[in-house]
């Protein structure tokens, strides 16, 4: 069953076209990697899927049978779309646990479930913390404030573990992580994968894909997916570089069209 179906998605900002017609179907139980050089439109795609308003958008996106582009940012989130941000923001003075409990309860309210109280929530949270090997003191600190780059990224995946999304989008989660942190984050993401959810991993480098094995790899270049394949495509890219694929005759044809 498809969770996400993107048809001919185009997007521009200030008259500059960034996405030039993306087609992509993501089914339940699948992990898709989207790779591409800087400026190819990877992050824009993620931002549009979660509802950032800075772009003018054309095309169709179905999510879980609904028209995604008609939904508000928070509605998409409550329907199970989660973005692990490339640059998580700091919210000074707002306690991490309080923040996450508010988010968790919004999702429960949306589903018609009763809200959980602080004690119930804490029990849940402690269990999820083990997955990410996070220090409990993070829970008492303000959201992302004073966190190191690595802690911020781990905190994103921790939030993902608690909110249990149907579609998780990880935007350059590997950047700024050392190899140990990378392994912890990847193993967390792997543990969260199930037959009824899906993941989109956006990354510039192949190294994250050593630990999170994708079912499909797509190469985004100049606003289009110019090549799709299995996990071996990522390795080939690593070896030959983006140039190889960009100069491929099939790619040239696509870009010119």
């Amino acid at each position, binding site marked *: 069953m498809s969770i996400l179906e993107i048809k001919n998605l185009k997007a521009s900002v200030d008259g500059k076209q960034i996405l030039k017609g993306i087609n992509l179907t993501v089914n339940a139980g699948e992990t898709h990697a989207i790779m591409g050089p800087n400026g190819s439109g990877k992050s824009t795609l993620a931002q549009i899927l979660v509802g*950032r308003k800075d772009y003018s958008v054309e095309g169709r996106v179905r999510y879980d049978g609904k028209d995604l582009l008609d939904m*508000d940012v928070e509605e998409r989130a409550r329907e199970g779309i989660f973005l692990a*941000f490339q640059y998580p923001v700091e*919210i*000074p*003075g707002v306690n991490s646990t309080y*923040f*996450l409990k508010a988010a968790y309860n919004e999702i429960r309210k949306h589903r018609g479930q009763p809200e959980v109280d602080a004690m119930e929530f804490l029990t849940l949270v402690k269990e999820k913390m083990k997955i990410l090997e996070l220090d409990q003191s993070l829970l008492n600190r303000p959201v992302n404030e004073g966190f190191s780059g690595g802690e911020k990224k781990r905190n994103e995946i921790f939030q993902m573990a608690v909110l249990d999304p149907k579609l998780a989008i990880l935007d350059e989660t590997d950047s700024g992580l050392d190899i140990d942190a990378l392994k912890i984050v990847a193993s967390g993401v792997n543990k969260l994968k199930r037959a009824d959810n899906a993941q989109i991993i956006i990354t510039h480098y192949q190294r994250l894909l050593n630990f999170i094995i994708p079912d499909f790899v797509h190469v985004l270049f100049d606003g289009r997916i110019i090549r799709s394949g299995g996990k071996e495509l990522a390795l080939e890219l690593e070896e030959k570089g983006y140039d190889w694929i960009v100069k491929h005759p099939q790619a040239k044809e696509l870009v010119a069209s």
Partner: protein
Amino acid sequence: MTTPAETIQQFVDRDYKYGFVTDIESDAVPPGLSEDVIRLISAKKKEPEFMLEWRLKAYRNWLTMTEPKWPNVHYPPIDYQKIIYYSAPKPKKGLNSLDEVDPELLKTFEKLGISLQEQKRLTGVAVDAIVDSVSVATTFQKDLEKLGILFCSFSDAVQKHSELVKKYLGTVVPYNDNYYAALNSAVFSDGSFCFIPKGVRCPMELSTYFRINAANTGQFERTLIIAEEGAYVSYLEGCTAPMRDENQLHAAVVELIALDDAEIKYSTVQNWYPGDREGKGGVFNFVTKRGKCAGRNSRISWTQVETGSAITWKYPSVILQGDHSVGEFYSVALTNNFQQADTGTKMIHIGKNTRSTIISKGISAGRGQNSYRGLVKILKAADGARNYSQCDSLLIGDRCGAHTFPYIEVKNTSAQVEHEASTSKIGEDQIFYCNQRGIATQDAVSMIVNGYCKEVFRHLPMEFAVEAQKLLGVSLEGSVG
């Protein structure tokens, strides 16, 4: 779909819910100010001679003074002859119990969320309720009296405890201190009086609730709190006013005196009518609040949450006279729409090893202008004095302003003075991050603002901290962009 900016606009545009008028007859003097009016007020209150003398001295001084022009606020000139200086809800005979209070007034306070019926009150708070110029009810007086605590309206104090009033009145804020304090000294009609005797810890929060009801009426109340050696009291003040198109003047004076080892905590949640979205109407809040740490090891702290008034001009201060005394100022000041606030504090270090802390959090939204103005003065004798000041400003939207005017005067080389300041903006990114986690924009703004104010809120008594959080949420409805 609404954008964050639109949602924030709606959030800011929420209406002032205390803007109703109670239909009660009032006994007022004609508008205008003269020695005759002052004599009339004093006569109505059957005051002893010394009070009238003091009022007249203040009035004669006021005539020679000019309105201060240095605050960073702008408003049309005030015609002091058009203001009614005394208005009291009728009938006002000597009330023996709450049962004799006008039911309309009781209803007014119920509507404001303040029950004057002692048996209905759950929290340990004693209330002095003041409408326009007079106190209409004071609760829990009898319980407090058993401990020797005097808590009553200022008028009652002048009658029953005139020796205490005479001893302390004007010792912290002299009748000629400044323009508005002089005006207040001349015409003040009521207020709260509180005296905690030696060694007594007041077991409940004492609070005064101010309500301006009558039109064209100025409210000039005067509060005097005295904590004798080793005494402790926590005091809270709340205020609201009806929505009216014309501006109303509120010029209060609060004096606090702490003797050796005494502690006074004074908290304010100020929610006077701020005027409408176009900046029409609202209360001019020109207030002089000052505490004197007269004794050794005494402590005075001011905590204020200022969300109302069209204009706020207010610098709750502490004179640190006793050695080892401590002064604190924690403030959240919010300006939205066309509100203007020029607020801050003065910490005057005189005694040795005196310490002061200033935490000021300004929030500007809409076209609000928020200024922090503070003075830290360390006098020559104040060996080992220390001050820490932190002034933060938070901007919501791009049409508001934040200004900081810190003044530091140090005459003793052993003093340590630290000042930190920051300005930040609620970013679209923060809101978007919250939205992406399923949290709606207005909840996100409340959450961010409350996070920002946390350091101040934790100094408020529990119930009022909750009230203050809600109040900020309401006052900010509709404001990010």
